């Protein structure tokens, strides 16, 4: 099994962002169902939604003194809104799950493999 990051990406013109709380409720429920399915199958590693990009702080610890800067790492028209870390036997399985996750959260999902195989249980 390999681990994959499924990250949900938003853009400023994302229709999701304009939804009212009532409209967004079914999306939450769909995501809950998707999460539960991942946990039931034992392939959930971690996941969660993130606060808006304005809440981010960039830390640069490469110099002598760490520098803290408000805002996202780079001016971007796209940002990560949430993510899952899942286990899958191969990319085809991960893509299939990402498609379900994308449908549930109504957002585009990027799939990236983790570098190392998880330590054997």
């Amino acid at each position, binding site marked *: 099994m390999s681990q994959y990051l499924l990250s949900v990406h938003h853009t400023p013109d994302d229709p999701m962002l304009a939804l009212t709380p009532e409209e967004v409720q079914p999306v939450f429920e769909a995501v809950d169902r998707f999460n539960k399915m991942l946990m039931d199958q034992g392939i959930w590693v971690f996941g969660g939604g993130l606060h808006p990009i304005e809440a981010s702080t960039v830390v640069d610890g490469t110099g002598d003194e760490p520098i803290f800067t408000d805002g996202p790492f780079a001016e971007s028209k796209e940002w990560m809104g949430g993510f899952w870390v899942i286990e899958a*036997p191969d990319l085809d399985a991960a893509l299939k799950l990402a498609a379900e996750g994308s449908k549930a959260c109504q957002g585009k999902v990027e799939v990236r*493999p983790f570098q190392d195989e998880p330590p054997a249980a």
Partner: protein
Amino acid sequence: MDATLAIERIYRDEYGRIVASLVRRFGDIDIAEEAAGEALLAAVEKWPADGVPPNPGGWLTTTARNRAIDKIRRESHRDAKHQAALMLNPTSGDDDVADKDTGLVEDDRLRLIFTCCHPALAPEARVALTLRLLGGLTVAEIARAFLVPETTMAQRITRAKAKIKNAHIPYRVPDGVDLTRRLAGVLAVIYLVYNEGYLSGSGDADIRDELTGEAIRLGRILRQLLPTDPEVAGLLALMLLTESRRHVRLAAGELVPLHEQDRGGWDRTLIAEGHDLVRECLALNRPGQYQLLAAVNAVHTDAPTAADTDWGQIVTLYSQLYAVAPSPIVTLNRAVAVAELDGAEVALAEVDRLDLTGYHAWHATRADLLRRLGRSADARAAYDAAIAATENEAERAYLSRRRGSLAGLEGPP
């Protein structure tokens, strides 16, 4: 033929088989390619003295596999468990498989082509990988075919191989619903390879022959592996029927349109094979876009002269094609047949409704219809637009000649 050249020819033909079998065995494309390369060197060293073995493909595969095992044994950085797993591949009867044309070896190539044409890879990488791993073309040859620097092509292939490895793109033939969808991707890659060779007006002729030949070879392999899929048969038929006309398609560097081609120069063997496949598709009655395009070509290759063409049949086929694969280009091609059936005026009305102003064939079709309607000034403008929209020298030469043959100007429009 020079001995080394003969060996290289055998190696080229066997390359996809060798690499596919090693990829299955070792799960690693780089190991497979490197071992295949070493097997070639061994052949060049041994065969001229010992003679070509009775089963050169089996010899190359066995040699490559042994080289790969040696290499893995030598490598100390692999953990013992991983190494043991590679060495003790559970596939028994491996030697037999490598030595004969058995089903399992074919399955390896099928697996590998689905990996090479995986939707998670960039389209240009799919084409390059397929030509490299299954076609056995060198990186330099692929770079020349696609008119990019060799370093660019090498990078493209390296990146794609890294993604297959790191993202764990499986070596597997997809099943169920996925197979149909993924097979469409494989067929698209093969057709793209064919068209690159057939349509490209630039690049050297040898490389273009190489590409059309390779696409047909891949099409035949796929047909052998998936004999009951009608679209696989359809694509092969489409390529064979197109190929049958290739040698009379150009004359002195100028494109010769279908109705002006010397039909005696068409390859009757390819046509017969293509027609058989089209008939087989018709009997299966599960039409798809390649089958329909093949059927259109079969109508053309069935007509002894251009005047005998069954245009009604062609219009029907394009309408069916539009139903399964709607595209303005299908409508444009259909309009060409409509012109023969209902006249240029009806066809022009259909063509003018299409939003294809960036496509040279749209301008060229309009130009021809306007010429037939005697609207010389409009036709001239359309020929100009068509010439400006294509880079293809043969096509430009043809269009320029047609423009030159227009009746004198009828005065300012």
